[in-house]
């Protein structure tokens, strides 16, 4: 936590509307020479409820769970939480921010962060 606070970038990027309770979703990152793929588990979240912001190298995800249960449903037993999700990822310089894409399917948000052409590994031919 201390590390995060001393990092000026992270502090600036924190939005003012932070009062809502949120939890950090589970996510997985896959790396390949072309792109970093982040798969974030967001069960119960619809596309319209996902907010994805990129600000100063920080990818900020905030997703509210849609209250999909009709009012007539009376809860008998609850184990799942209605709390929304919040995740902040600091992108490194290699990421091509303009080429970022995101797709939500089956409760998983897949964010593809392409690697900049200049940062891709290449082989140099010796003359």
């Amino acid at each position: 936590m201390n590390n995060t606070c001393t990092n000026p970038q992270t502090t600036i990027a924190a939005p003012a509307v932070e009062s809502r309770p949120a939890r950090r979703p589970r996510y997985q990152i896959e790396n390949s020479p072309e792109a970093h793929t982040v798969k974030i588990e967001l069960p119960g979240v619809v596309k319209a409820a996902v907010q994805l912001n990129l600000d100063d190298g920080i990818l900020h995800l905030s997703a509210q769970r849609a209250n999909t249960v009709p009012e007539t449903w009376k809860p008998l037993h609850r184990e799942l939480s209605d709390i929304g999700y919040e995740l902040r990822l600091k992108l490194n310089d290699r990421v091509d921010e303009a080429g970022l894409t995101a797709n939500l399917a089956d409760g998983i948000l897949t964010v593809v962060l392409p690697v900049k052409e200049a940062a891709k590994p290449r082989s140099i031919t010796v003359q």
Partner: protein
Amino acid sequence: MQHNGLRMETHFGLLQTEPKTIKPKNTMRLTHCQPVATANITRHPLQGLFRHPLAGLPAFEQLFDLASFPAFNSQTSATLAVDVYEDEGNYYARFEVPGVKKEDTKVELEARRLAVSVSRKTVTSESESSFELSRTLTVPDGIHVEAISAKLEDGLLTVTLPKAETRKPRVIELN
């Protein structure tokens, strides 16, 4: 339950000072804590008189066994979390299954046990990971078994268990 617990505490305290004191019946919790002490205890002939009027009845305990109440008795050892809802016509069991495909979802009903199991396999260039989760619920009586349905949407699996006609609330006319 609370009442019983209180009584045990009292006797437990007495045990420490006078080993020959009365041991109330049905003090399962006490014997668990102090297995050695129970060997020396003699039963007082009048003990039965001081027992809680309902203490010996097994039905009393069952009445307040919340696990079997109200409608669903769930196995807590499983890992798939569930929400259970009810409305006038149906029971609903909802599971969180992010990334699980329809073909990897299995919903089975045998006798009164609803077994839900899901699996997910993630293959990347570097690694391969998979999980399998399952949960068994005991469904209440009066379910229209043929009409049970399941829906997978936005990473949520909802199993709808329609109540049989006899179970639905109805108004009884007075003559």
